[in-house]
């Protein structure tokens, strides 16, 4: 029995998830300690309960079945995303909420993350698909682009970015050539550089050119890619200059929130203070002044990382980071271990999604990155996010169980 367990039950993943969900619940309790939002703790408890059920279900479904159902699930989520754009409820400025019944609904974009990865994994694991083939490559990319577009239309920039970031390791793992990957990344980076300023744009363009040249497979492709890069960069530059000053300011504030502490930068500023003031050991559970006195708005969602940071200090925050990064390391290793190509790509895909969330969310909370509103996996309050993440974990446990099978 014990050996069965060891062979088929990914205890590491399971217990890390349990631990992080537990810490998340404790944090939400603290952040909602004043009466008004206390109901969120109870809700998250319910979500966690459901999450565990779905997680176990995802673990136990035969992997082949999952593979076969991937595209259907994908199509379904695309339909719901479209539906939500037209008939969806607005939630924090984006039409992202799908209301099934009164007050009960979910965010389809969370589940789209799952199905998109499953679909892409299913596609690239087909023996007839060769990622080196341009047509196949583009198809795979489209599997991601379509939902990205629908989500961007809500608008939900954060989730769109997550999709893009998750795409990259997935392609990399699926065997895309270095050049192709570079050719995909460089234009985006250079265009981003254009938003910072002309000098940064030129600098990024120079680095981009060097990279493209270094990784070139043939000169033509390299030059073409660079051409696209420049075109994109210049377009962004021109468009930026045509923006009204207040719009330009919005962009620069977005990139550097600390420049506008009263406005957009307020949350990040308070978050930084919360984490920093925790010191080594923190102020004690339920004794964090930034948390308890509500200096960080809606702290139980995007800024949940502040709670262990302020109340448990460096020790607490490190534990959380370590647990989360354990998930990531484990995911990569699982992908390598899995002989099943479908499972392997799924593992990388989910790991990429989690990595994007974790790095952006904690980076934002510590004022390293711009304010991109995305939740911290397993910790932030939110039913869709929690349940979707737990399903992903369940699927990974499934991949683990089947890692030795082709």
């Amino acid at each position, binding site marked *: 029995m014990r050996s069965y367990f060891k062979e088929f039950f990914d205890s590491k993943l399971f217990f890390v998830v349990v631990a992080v969900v537990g810490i998340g619940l404790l944090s939400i309790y603290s952040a909602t300690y004043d009466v008004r939002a206390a109901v969120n703790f109870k809700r998250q408890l319910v979500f966690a309960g459901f999450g565990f059920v779905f997680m176990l279900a995802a673990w136990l479904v035969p992997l082949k079945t999952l593979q076969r159902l991937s595209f259907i699930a994908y199509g379904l989520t695309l339909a719901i995303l479209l539906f939500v754009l037209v008939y969806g409820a607005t939630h924090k400025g984006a039409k992202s909420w799908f209301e099934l019944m009164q007050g009960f609904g979910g965010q389809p974009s969370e589940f789209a993350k799952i199905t998109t990865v499953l679909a892409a994994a299913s596609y690239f694991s087909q*023996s*007839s698909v*060769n*990622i*080196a083939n341009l047509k196949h490559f583009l198809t795979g990319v489209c599997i991601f682009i379509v939902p990205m577009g629908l989500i961007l239309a809500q608008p939900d920039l954060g989730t769109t970015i997550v999709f893009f970031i998750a795409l990259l*390791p997935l392609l*990399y*793992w*699926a*065997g*895309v*050539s270095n050049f192709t990957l570079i050719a995909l990344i460089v234009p985006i980076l250079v265009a981003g550089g254009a938003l910072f300023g002309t000098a940064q744009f030129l600098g990024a363009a120079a680095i981009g050119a060097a990279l493209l040249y270094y990784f070139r497979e043939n000169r033509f492709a390299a030059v073409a890619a660079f051409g696209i890069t420049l075109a994109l960069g210049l377009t962004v530059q021109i468009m930026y200059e045509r923006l009204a000053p207040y719009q330009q300011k919005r962009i620069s504030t977005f990139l550097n929130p600390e420049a506008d502490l009263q406005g957009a930068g307020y949350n990040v500023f*308070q978050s*930084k*203070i*919360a*984490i*920093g*003031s*925790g*010191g*080594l050991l923190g102020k004690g559970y339920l004794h964090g*002044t*930034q948390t308890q*006195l*509500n*200096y960080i*708005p809606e702290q139980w969602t995007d800024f949940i990382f502040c709670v262990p*940071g302020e109340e448990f*200090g*460096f020790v607490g*925050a*490190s534990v959380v*980071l370590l647990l989360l*990064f354990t998930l*990531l*390391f484990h995911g*990569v*290793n699982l*992908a*390598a271990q899995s002989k099943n*190509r479908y499972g*392997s790509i799924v593992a*990388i895909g989910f790991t990429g999604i989690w*990595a994007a969330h974790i*790095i952006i969310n*904690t*980076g934002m909370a*510590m004022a*390293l990155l711009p304010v991109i509103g995305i939740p911290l996996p397993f910790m932030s309050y939110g039913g869709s996010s929690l349940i979707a993440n737990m399903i992903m974990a369940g699927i990974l446990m499934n991949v683990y169980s089947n890692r030795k099978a082709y």
Partner: protein
Amino acid sequence: MIASEEFGSPYRRLVLLAIVAAACVVLFGRLIVLQLLYHEELGKKSDENSVRTLVKEPVRGYMFDRNGRLIVDVGPAFSVTVTPSEFDTLNYKRLAALLDLELPTLRDRVAKGRAYSRFSPVRVKRDVDFRTLSSLEENLFMLPGVSYEVESKRTYTGGQHAAHLLGYCKEISDAQFAKLGAVYRQGDVIGSSGLEASYETFLRGEKGFEFFSVNAKGQSTGPLESGKRDVLPKEGFDLILSLDYGLQAYAESLMTPFRGALVALDPHTGGILAAVSKPDFNPEVFSGVTSAEEWNALNNDPAKPLFNRATQTRYPPGSTFKMLLALAALQEGVIDEQYEIKCTGGFRFGNRLFKDTHVHGQTDIIKSIQQSCNVFYNQLILKVGLDLWASYCRMFGFGKSAGFDLPEETTGLVPTSAYYDRVYGPGRWTQGNLVSLGIGQGELGVSPLQMARYVATLANKGTLVQPHAVNYVRNKQSNRLEAIDYKSTKLPIKEEYFDIVREAMRRCVQVTGGTGMAAGIPGIESAGKTGTAENPHGGDHSWFVGFAPFENPQIAIAVLVENVGFGASYAAPIAGLVNERYLKGEVKRSYHFAPPKRGTSKDSTASITQALAH
């Protein structure tokens, strides 16, 4: 399988692991920077967010007179506050009417408060009178968000006396704040004149602090750590003055119709018994909130009521200065005790004739003082010499500040050769300038305070005392009285010379023919000297200096009445009455002043006859 050979390659696995590891390191690094390196700075910001400090003002020290009577007290000042988030804007009109405020002013103040914090009360009117407060109280139930808080202000028990001596407090000025910053905040009240100013560091006490937790909305959520970190305010120290408040009140009542000053000292210690400067003001004007009209009225009044004539002005002393010259001459051996001259009613110097008031005939030292012969002194100063005489002036405390414990004293002016050289040019002045100095005229300038000290020295036969207002400071922490030490100096003048001069002064008051008889006290022997100082700008000033009783004096006094004429007519009787009040406790007789003879000050109500009571 047509798959890319890069699929799932071990190399790529390592690359991905490396990227994850790099991200991990960066985030950890940032965590370390924030929580370990910047912990203190961010911790402070966290406190700034969440801790609000309420300053608790200490109670300012009281002032008592020499008999333990409370004269300067601290009382409540009520300020009305409005909490913007709770205030119903329909009530603006009613509130403005209750507080007697202009409606736009009230709106403006509340708006400013709201901009700062909706949940903090903002003061809309300070120092409201009790009637306003009472009517506000009656209506409070209809005015949600309106409340009042209690601050403290100075109150004066027993009337508005000794305003110049006691001084007043005002809001700290920018210049003062720049200099003294640390202990004070903008808007604090600081002693600005008189004893309030010179003893500010004793009177002000130490502020206390209460700490509150405050949430992101600015609402207080309770005391921080149950008040464990709170600091209690420390009360200011009390001052026990040498002043006799009853005497002060009485002296002020005598001086009220005039402009001038009166300083009475204890001749043994130098402690002030009374210090009057008229015209004066009501110190209550400055406590609490002073209206602009009140301040301008006082500031722009041509009679300068804010000016302390006892310590800040200088006048020529006239004949009251003769005793000093006599002592100088005796001590320097210029004359001896039997010295006499023949007074013919005038003194000729060069081609000028300095007329005396009478022909005194054969005059010795005693008679020269008793009857105030000018010729005697016109020629005596020429014998003594300018600089030697000036050195005696300085010896008696003239020409420099008396070191009195009030801020801003005049030094007066004692001319010397160097002075005349500077003013006229060397070789451009003659001994002729001295002639007037001999009888206390000319460029010589003294303050009533200096004169009081001078006559105290005559009274106690040669000890120069330190005039002071404060005898003790009561430390409110240890509850102990701490005496302040004042230095006295024994002057290098033989006591027998003082005996001569004192006897002369006794005869001036007690014996017929003396100019100062109006200063006599029924039943008590006293001594003194009159003076009538010529004033180029108007009427003569009336001077009197004296002490009582003659043996073992208890009070030394200097009185100056501006622009009313003879010393004998005004300053002398006032001095006599004040001395009597001090020695007997009450004055039963009444005195009538004749109207002033030569040129009067514009405001003086010259035709008043005073029936004097206690």
